[in-house]
């Protein structure tokens, strides 16, 4: 249960628990210490009062002056407790030298001149202690009810003439202890009220990077989402290092996945290419024969109207099959006329009308300066294809851009437009044959361009973002 809890709560809960334990331990130790001190204080103050009373009681006891003695013993009770903390006796008894009641604050319970033992438990016991008292010291007795009896001898000239018995209620300590404990609890709560939110805040802060990391890792399935972005803390501590490593791994993983996807696409395109080329070859041979047969039949046969119509139908059908097949069968014909800067300028002129239809602007950057050892026809075909596509995708009054350069032994042409981005699903099948989003398109333009680039040992890449879609064709120049 606790194990499954998020660190966002686990760390603060642990921190709080630790604070609670510490606060309780410290408070308990203090309360225990205070209780000890309190007991000592109470006993010391009781002793002090008993000593003063015993000394004051000597003259009335010697003169048998009951009333004065009564006034003396009732005075501590009459004055009332000085403070709630002050100890306050319940009963004060004065015994004469035969342990009979001489005077008391509670004459109804302890009749005068009667032996103390008549009052019942625990007084017989106290009477025995009083009888055994010598001149010095005092006795402290706690009875079954928890009451505390302090016995002090009343001494005159070294002779014990009586005994003072001061009785404190059983709950002498409890109220004081309770008030102290309440105060300690208040302070502890106050400290907790400050520390717990602080620890909670720290805990949450500490858990934050971990939670983010876990959240980020959770988003990675078999595929890495393209829009995965993790804002992780970068610091020198363990978590920071983990974050940095994770980011690096994620980057590598993304790269690897992109590479794989590209490879798969290239392989598929190659397979389709091989398949279509094979089929085309196989179809082309009988097609040639069929066309020859039609020609021969037309030239030498006598055709009535019906036959003429049928042959024409067949011829048109076979020619269409040939066109389609030859379109699929892209063959970089070996034409040796090299590409010149002027070839690209021609292309600019050719696509002009298509762009004008959209009132689009053409940014033209032709950095070619001399002849390039590439088939001018094929390059022109590819560039026209890409430019016409761009002209189609560009919004009204948009911009189409071409940038052609020779770079590191490669011819590179980048054709961009500022139209909408190509959807992720479509972009993967973009270079396959018969893939189109135009009702009037054949879906063969990019296929052909790709096949040409492949056959020339080059490549076409696409990068599409909203407002900027770029096709880059790269062709190695063989001198």
């Amino acid at each position, binding site marked *: 249960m606790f194990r499954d809890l998020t660190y966002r709560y686990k760390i603060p809960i642990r921190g709080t628990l630790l604070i609670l334990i510490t606060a309780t331990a410290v408070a308990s130790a203090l309360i225990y210490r205070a209780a000890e001190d309190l007991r000592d204080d109470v006993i010391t103050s009781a002793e002090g009062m008993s000593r003063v009373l015993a000394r004051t009681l000597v003259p009335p006891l010697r003169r*048998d*002056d*009951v*009333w004065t003695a*009564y006034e003396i013993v*009732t005075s501590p009770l009459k004055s009332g407790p000085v403070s709630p903390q002050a100890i306050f006796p319940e009963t004060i008894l004065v015994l004469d030298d035969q342990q009979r009641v001489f*005077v008391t604050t*509670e*004459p*109804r319970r302890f*009749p*005068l*001149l009667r032996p103390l033992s008549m009052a019942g438990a625990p007084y017989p016991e106290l009477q025995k202690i009083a009888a055994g008292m010598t001149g010095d010291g005092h006795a402290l007795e706690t009875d079954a009810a928890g009451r505390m009896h302090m016995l002090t001898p009343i001494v005159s000239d070294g002779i014990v003439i009586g005994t003072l018995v001061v009785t404190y209620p059983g709950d002498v300590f409890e109220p004081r202890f309770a008030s102290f404990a309440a105060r300690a609890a208040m302070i502890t709560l106050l400290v907790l009220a400050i520390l717990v939110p602080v620890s909670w805040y720290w805990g949450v802060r500490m858990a934050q990077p971990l939670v983010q990391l876990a959240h980020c890792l959770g988003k990675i399935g078999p595929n890495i989402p393209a829009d995965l972005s993790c804002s992780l803390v970068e610091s020198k501590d363990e978590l920071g290092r983990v974050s940095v490593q994770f980011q690096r791994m994620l980057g590598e993983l993304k790269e690897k996945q992109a590479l794989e996807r590209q490879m798969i696409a290239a392989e598929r395109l190659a397979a389709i290419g091989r398949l279509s080329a094979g089929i085309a070859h196989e179809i082309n041979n009988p097609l040639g024969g069929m066309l020859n047969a039609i020609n021969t039949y037309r030239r030498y046969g006598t055709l009535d109207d019906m036959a003429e119509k049928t042959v024409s139908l067949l011829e048109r059908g076979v020619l269409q099959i040939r066109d389609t097949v030859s379109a699929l069968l892209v063959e970089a014909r070996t034409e040796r006329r090299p590409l010149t800067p002027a070839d690209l300028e021609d292309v600019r002129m050719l696509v002009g009308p298509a762009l004008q239809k959209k009132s689009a602007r053409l940014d033209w950057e032709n950095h070619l300066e001399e002849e390039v050892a590439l088939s001018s026809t094929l390059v022109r075909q590819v560039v026209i294809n890409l430019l016409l596509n761009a002209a189609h995708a560009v919004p009204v009054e948009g911009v189409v851009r071409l940038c052609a350069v020779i770079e590191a032994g490669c011819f590179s042409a980048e054709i961009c437009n500022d139209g909408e981005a190509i959807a992720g699903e479509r972009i993967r099948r973009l270079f396959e044959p018969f893939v189109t989003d135009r009702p009037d398109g054949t879906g063969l333009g990019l296929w052909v361009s790709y096949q040409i680039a492949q056959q020339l040992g080059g490549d076409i890449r696409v990068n599409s973002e909203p407002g900027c879609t770029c096709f880059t064709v790269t062709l190695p120049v063989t001198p």
Partner: protein
Amino acid sequence: MPPIFRFTRVLLVALSLLFSGSALSQEAPAPLSIGITPVFLDDQLSLLRDWARYLTPRLGRPVEFVQRGSYREIVDLTVSGKLDFAWICGFPYVTAGERLRLLTVPVYQGRPEYRAYLIVPSDDHTTAGLSDLYDKVFAFSDPDSNSGALVIRYQLLQMKKRPEEHFRKTFYTGAHRKVVEAVAAGLADGGAVDGYVWDTLARIEPDLTVRTRVVQASSPYGFPPFVAGPSVEQSDLQRLQTVLIAMGEDEEGRRLLTRMNLDGFTRGERALYDDIERMGRAVAAGH
């Protein structure tokens, strides 16, 4: 204090002593001292202060109330002339004989008389008289008090008993009020108290008297009188007598009398105290 000042002070005191009774004393007449005993509620210090303020201008001399621990001390001081006047119990007055002159007698409930009460704690519902208090603890007020001691002694004498035989324990509280307190607290099982004091307490401190019960009220005796010491001039005696008797005639005096729970003062006669004198003799003889 530097020694020179101390010396000067000693010199001044010596000089004032030397000229006392001559010019100095005429400028500030010697105060009239009145000894008081707990025959009334003498612990009301504000009453004493107001009474002194009342008497001083009417006598033309400052008045000073003097309190002591027992009746005997006040009586001794008055007899020996250290005090001019005293408000004492009828018993020491008759005992002192000719040495004390009767000044005035307070009037209580229309008569110069009062009664002695026998009281017990209010939770004692059975005691009906002294005989029921056998083997009990008994509180007297003052050995020289009529109502607080003599009356009980005399009654016991009638029963052919002495207090120490009849009671388990007796003690003196020194004042009537304290007898009431002792009985109310249960320290004593019975007590002898001045009826006037108990009645007054019942009026001003009913919480205390409600815890006691009056079992017996004695026959009336002469109210504790104001007496004059042997050395008091007859003119001083007459002046104080006149002022006290006239107290009921002005507003301020009446207010003081109300606070004392008295009707006024009268000249009184020695014969009022004949009963007390007779009891005193009997008790003394019985011992």
